[in-house]
């Protein structure tokens, strides 16, 4: 048996105090209760009054109340209908969605997103497979992107890596000094930078710098219909936009990683020679002995994978933009966060793989 509806009179004028009282009164009802707003005394509504009444009704319905309107005068009805005709529908609150429905909806959305990523990966790989000719890679655009993503990023990558090397050496020195093994700071810094820190620092900086720019550029092109315009001209957005950006990252990130490694080692060298009196020749000699070519190659392989991840995540987030400039902002943030998480996850997988395979 349904509960008795409760009647709430709406005052003649919905001024601030009356509005607050009405909201408080509605909040006092339990979910599922039926409340009839008696509008008999409400003779006319100005814009602010209508906005307040609509807000109260929407808020109560969102909280699960069954709100109905009684004795609505023609003028008030017209005013409300102009703003939101649906508000006059005396519908019961929608039942909560079943958890299985929620899970199913999320699963379908995830499957759609996975399908879009798979299609992007497939199309990019297909375009990369044709390096030359009229339908080949746009090398001019790729060079432009290399300058933006690579050359322009050198100062920040080198600067940050130098500082990381410096910090690594300082922290390592505190521990190794207890064993009289401060010279092994050179090993610590060189191997850490080459295998892990160099590629990862570069990836994080490039994600923030280039990944965001890619998502923002493509997202803006989506909302200004530039991507649609390309499609109607039978031009592939993947060939024109995605491939040059991904390829530029694949070429420049290993180079940036090498620079990051060198800068980090120089940071450690600066601490070793200046602060720890290790001697320049001794430090460099220890570094050369500690580093194997496999350490450097491991980092370079990682950097290529990170480049692909950053490029594809940025472009995918850009293409997924729907709406206006706010959506571009969200896509940009999402591209950076997702790319950084993806790179860290990939790095963990690589490290585990190389550890197991020796």
């Amino acid at each position: 048996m349904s509960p008795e509806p409760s009647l709430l009179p709406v005052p003649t004028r919905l001024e601030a105090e009356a509005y607050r009282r009405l909201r408080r009164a509605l909040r006092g009802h339990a979910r599922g209760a039926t409340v009839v707003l008696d509008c008999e005394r409400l003779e006319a509504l100005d814009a602010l009054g209508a906005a307040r009444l609509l807000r109260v009704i929407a808020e109560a319905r969102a909280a699960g109340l069954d709100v109905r309107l009684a004795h609505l005068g023609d003028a008030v009805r017209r005013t409300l209908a102009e703003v939101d005709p649906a508000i006059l529908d005396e519908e019961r609150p929608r039942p909560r969605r079943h958890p299985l429905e929620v899970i199913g909806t999320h699963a379908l959305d995830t499957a759609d997103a996975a399908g879009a990523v798979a299609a992007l990966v497939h199309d990019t790989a297909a375009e990369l497979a044709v390096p030359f000719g009229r339908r080949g890679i746009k090398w001019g655009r790729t060079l432009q992107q290399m300058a933006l993503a690579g050359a322009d990023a050198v100062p920040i990558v080198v600067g940050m890596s130098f500082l990381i090397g410096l910090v690594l050496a300082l922290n390592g020195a505190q521990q190794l000094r207890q064993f009289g093994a401060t010279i092994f700071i050179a090993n610590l810094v060189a191997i850490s930078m080459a295998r892990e820190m160099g590629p990862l620092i570069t990836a994080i900086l490039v994600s923030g710098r280039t990944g965001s720019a890619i998502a923002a550029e493509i997202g803006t092109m989506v909302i200004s219909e530039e991507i649609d315009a390309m499609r109607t001209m039978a031009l592939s957005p993947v060939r024109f936009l995605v491939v040059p950006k991904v390829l530029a990252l694949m070429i420049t990130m290993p180079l940036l990683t090498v620079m990051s490694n060198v800068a980090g080692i120089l940071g450690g060298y600066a601490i070793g020679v200046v602060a720890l009196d290790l001697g320049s020749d001794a430090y460099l000699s220890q570094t050369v002995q500690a580093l194997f070519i496999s350490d450097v190659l491991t980092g370079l392989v990682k950097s290529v994978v990170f480049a692909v991840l950053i490029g594809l995540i940025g472009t995918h987030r850009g293409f997924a933009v729907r709406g206006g400039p706010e959506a571009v902002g969200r896509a940009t943030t999402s591209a950076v966060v997702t790319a950084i998480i993806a790179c860290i996850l990939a790095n963990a997988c690589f490290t585990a793989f190389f550890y197991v395979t020796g």
Partner: protein
Amino acid sequence: MTDAGATPLLVVEDLVAGYGDEVVLEGISLVVEPGEILVVLGSTGSGKSTLLRCIVGLLAPRSGRVLIRGRDINAASDREREGILRDVGLSFQEAALLNSLTTAENVALPIIEHWDVDEATALMLARMRLARVGLAGAGEKMPSELSGGMRKRAGIARAMALEPALLLLDEPSAGLDPITARAIDELILSFKARGNIGIVAVTHELGSINTIADRAIMFAAGRIIAAGTLAQVRDAPDERVQAFFQRRLLPGNQQRTLAEELEWRDGGRSDRRTLGAEE
């Protein structure tokens, strides 16, 4: 018009399309022949632009077919679709020029991609196309440096870059001053005068409709509610058609009749005669 039995330029058959749960177009059928201008009328949100998106394959229909020179764009392979789209030029409502390229590079882009010409020749051709729409000398400007009317004209020049058989125009004169709007109407008529091109223009500008339409269809809520010559559409008994032609809501709730609209557009010089003929 074409010879009897020839393949029409564009055939839309019983098209149903929409976004998400919303059906925007329902049961749309139309034919466009070479050498004619079909004007698609309707108020904002009636599905006119969605129709254009379906024609160029940007939106896959839920059912129905779009045939361009007899080829179904939605059933075509990627390579076949490319061939079909080379026959179609679409001018977007906001022009949709690529902001990272100059105006000339925008127009040259499809030429470079689809014709066997070098970049310098393509740019030369692009400047010629721009001159044709009254933008000689604007080729080196970036799209952000162009006015609204110039951007629209550049968008039309890009749509005409490959000399398509079918030109689609989305609100070509919306939001423009009367002189620029009239210039664009004349441009559209000049394309038609060249012969074999078929044009579909989506618009709700009464002045343009009267100037350029050979035939018209009128949309309301995603359905065609009137079709035929402009006179036939204007005489359709549907009250939405009558409301569209008799009254036009303007800022400040002023309303203009068609006659007043034409007066407003060009001082009534040429259109009085046309209007008189219709009356």
